[in-house]
């Protein structure tokens, strides 16, 4: 974010550096690019599967772009984007809860009768298990999802993203002391949840099952 306020900047086009003037979107994309993996992990930690996380990231970045002027430089750009993602996530959940009983109930109500006909009667694996690129990541994500959200996000930001308590407090809009206490409790819960995942995996191996 070192070019805030600049009316031009430079981008690599593979052949050299080009000066791009007045292209707000290119500038926004350049600013977001470096943060993309962290933002993606933030979305994965909020959502239950990769598809939902990627939708959330897309919707949030569009909203951030449309309201980019509201970022005044107070706090980190990453923190500002995380705030937008959280709001978008909460709004999406509320909307989903409101609309479940209408279109979804009509479509899913009828489909439940026919569902097994068209899947051979076999339930498909939990999409959460496919949310991550590796089994280790998937286990961690499952363990994180066992935590209440207020602990989950603190553990993510502190232990995965290795942010300082002050920055986490700024991102989540809570006092530093609250972040510390949530981190302590969240860490303890994560240890327990992850151990449960390990035990479950060991049990599955012993009984010849798979995850």
């Amino acid at each position, binding site marked *: 974010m070192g070019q805030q306020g600049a009316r031009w900047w430079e981008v690599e086009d593979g052949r050299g550096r080009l000066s791009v003037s007045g292209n707000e979107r290119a500038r926004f*994309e350049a600013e977001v690019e470096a943060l993309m993996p962290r933002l993606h992990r933030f979305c994965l930690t909020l959502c239950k599967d990769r598809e939902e996380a990627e939708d959330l990231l897309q*919707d949030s970045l569009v909203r951030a772009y449309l309201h980019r002027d509201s970022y005044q430089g107070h706090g980190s750009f990453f923190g500002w984007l995380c705030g937008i993602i959280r709001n978008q996530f909460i709004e999406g959940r509320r909307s989903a809860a409101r609309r479940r009983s209408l279109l979804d109930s009509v479509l899913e109500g009828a489909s439940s009768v*026919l569902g097994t*006909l068209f899947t051979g009667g076999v339930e498909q694996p939990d999409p959460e298990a496919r949310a991550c690129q590796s089994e280790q990541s998937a286990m961690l994500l499952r363990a994180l999802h066992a935590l209440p959200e207020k602990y989950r996000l603190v553990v993510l930001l502190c232990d995965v993203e290795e942010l*300082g308590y002050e920055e986490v407090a700024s991102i989540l809009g809570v006092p530093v002391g609250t972040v510390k206490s949530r981190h302590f409790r969240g860490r303890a819960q994560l*240890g327990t949840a992850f151990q449960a995942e390990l035990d479950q995996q060991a049990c599955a191996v012993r009984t010849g099952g798979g995850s």
Partner: protein
Amino acid sequence: MSKDDETKLPPLPEEARFAIQAFRTERPSTQARFRIQAALEAAEAGQSAPPRPAPPPKYAGWRASAGLRVAMGAVLTGALMLGVTVNLDGDDSQLISHESLPARHLSVQIPEEGFGWVELPWNIGDHPEGTAVVHMETPAEMNFHEHHAEHLPALQLVSCEADRCLHQFEAPSGSAAQPLRVRIHKAGRYEFRVSHASDERQINERFVVDAGH
């Protein structure tokens, strides 16, 4: 977080530390990146985001399964409501294809008094020639069924719950497809969910419209 803070925290299993390192390698898919870029381009141009491409094979299995259930539900529901007979013999897996498109955002200016129209760029033209059965969920406050009966002759109000209403109608598909026009009376944010089905495919779409003066 300082090293001193770290020593005061409950320890994590060694495996969890490895898992955290693995999780740090998680990145959005290439497809997602393309979609984000396209959505930002559309936002810059003041248009809705382009539709999402088909999911990669890695995720296609479970999505297709869930989608197929929803698709068949939509077809059956539509058939029951319209009294159409559906032939369930033959190869079920080729009976219908299902697509869920990402949400698209639109902005519209409406007059201070009266109302304005917004055209939702739905993909009903992707169906074969003929008609598609449409289910559309709208905010209840819009009284969609009252204001749109004129240009959607077969429009029916299916049900309302809380602040949402579900409607059903038929619309021309294929090359005869028309944009879906929605009348908006006051500024605000409106969400529309549309599911349209033909004999060959079923498409779910979501539109978010920001209306301002």
